[in-house]
């Protein structure tokens, strides 16, 4: 038996990739196929894509200006002219919902962009180095995690003043600790793995090991967690809007719409039902998508 035997065996196994981009491309194709196999995930993905499209094409999709009041036509029921009815100032609820998608997406993406890297960096660093670094970072994380997130967000908004940007900062401050913990747990596990030890023994610096070897492995579970988080971000943002601390009138934020619609809820159900339905639909969609991504990306399921 010589080394040649395996060379002939090798060509029969799997498809060959002429270059690395093609290898990545087939990986992406396979993943998408597997993602869409689950109908619930497909629905979730569909709704999220719809949200993106609605936000992108809001000015074209909206039938009215979301901010223009028409006091002659307040609280009118859903009709051909106003699909989802009008609110107490006669503004078209459908158009407000469509424009509100932009605000929702703005909040989600900004929070995720802030929270993902911070949580990942803190978690990976404390998990990898251990010792006092770990103790320091994890105690800070504990402090943040020990407050109920809405209460902490309320405190921050109260301190900074109401407004959309402040709501984003407040939500970001409250939602990084779970990500950091997740990344730390993953890193603790990975640190022992032979392939990390191997690259250490090759003389790689800690920064290189963290960035190129550990973070890519944590990334999948962090992405899943972030997607799941998006649902709670939407709810927290809506909650802050409802309490009057998020987006300020006349911005068509969904939570704020429910908040003002509350007073007219018994006579005019559409003021509350449509924004509420939108929040429900979108947060459910992000949860379903997160579930699907977890099935896809979890390294233990491979």
């Amino acid at each position, binding site marked *: 038996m010589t*080394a040649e035997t395996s060379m002939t065996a*090798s060509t029969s196994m799997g498809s*060959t990739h002429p270059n*690395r981009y*093609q290898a990545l491309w087939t990986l992406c194709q396979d993943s998408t196929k597997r993602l869409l196999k689950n109908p619930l995930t497909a629905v979730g993905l569909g709704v999220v894509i719809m949200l993106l499209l609605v936000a992108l094409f809001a000015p074209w999709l909206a039938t009215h200006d979301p901010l223009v009041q028409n006091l002659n036509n307040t609280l009118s029921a859903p009709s051909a002219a106003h699909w989802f009815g009008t609110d107490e100032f006669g503004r078209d609820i459908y158009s407000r919902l469509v424009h509100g998608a932009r605000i929702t997406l703005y909040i989600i993406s900004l929070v995720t962009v802030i929270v993902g890297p911070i949580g990942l960096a803190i978690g990976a660093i404390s998990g990898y180095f251990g010792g006092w670094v770990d103790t320091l970072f994890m105690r800070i994380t504990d402090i943040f995690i020990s407050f109920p997130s809405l209460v902490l967000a309320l405190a921050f908004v109260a301190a900074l003043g109401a407004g959309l940007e402040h709501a984003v900062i407040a939500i970001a401050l409250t939602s990084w600790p779970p990500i950091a913990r997740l990344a730390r747990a993953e890193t603790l596990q990975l640190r022992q793995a032979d392939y990390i030890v191997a690259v250490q*023994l*090759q*003389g790689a610096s800690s920064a290189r090991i963290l960035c190129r*070897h550990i973070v890519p*492995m944590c990334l999948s579970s962090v992405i899943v967690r972030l997607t799941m988080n998006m649902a709670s971000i939407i709810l927290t943002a809506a909650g802050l809007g409802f309490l009057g601390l998020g987006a300020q009138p006349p911005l068509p934020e969904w939570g704020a719409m429910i908040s003002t619609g509350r007073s007219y809820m018994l006579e005019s159900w559409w003021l509350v039902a449509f924004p509420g339905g939108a929040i429900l639909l979108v947060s459910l969609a992000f949860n379903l998508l997160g579930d699907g991504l977890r099935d896809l990306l979890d390294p233990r399921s491979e």
Partner: protein
Amino acid sequence: MTMIDIQSLDLSFGHGAQQAHILKSIQLAIDEGESFGLVGESGSGKTTILRCLAGQYNHWTGHISVNNQRLSHRLDRARCRLMQMVFQDPYGSLHPRHTIESILAEPLKIHGIDQRHERIGQLLSKVGLDDSFRYRFPHQLSGGQRQRVAIARALILEPRILLLDEPTSALDVSVQAEILNLLSELRQREGLTYLMVTHDLGVVAHLCDRIAVMQHGEILEVLGTDELLAGQAQHPYTQMLITHSRHKSEVPGQVTRV
């Protein structure tokens, strides 16, 4: 010439009452170009010696010199280029999200070596894999192929010493023989020094010139493979290992296990 010289190497983990003394004043001298085996039961400290040498454990005491240079407690680049390790489990030793090419290119990038594409191509053919493996992921490879990649990764920095931690024990019997042949071929061609851990006397007979028998963190006996095969072992523990292995080798198959 002595390549690896270990004198009174001691290592323990934990503190106080829970302290576990893993290595107890180990003495070893391994010549250049030699293939040296560490044999013994699980937990006898074989792998720990390897990990001390490779630089994973740094709190040992004693004196280790490699290639006439005293080993420091910190892992430096020169040591990485002198000694590399091959791990036991080929399923756990390759990064699951990296292609074979990026696994092999990583050490070259770390050490700033150029002509990476050519070097990787040469090395792949050296370990019996063709160029089509370059852009595959480890999960698309069999166990034997993965271990070949792991050997290639250890060799890409052109080290003079290869530390082998039971390189065949996670593989099928037929693939074990292939990997052992590859290892002995590579040693002859590249003039490598092997220090290998195994608890498989068949592997020892196949690949090693001399072995040290270990138990409870101590070296009981150092003897040549010829002496081992001739049954000239002095220590009762070694004799027990051999009789167990003889007993099992009556079952057909070249590679036997203690």
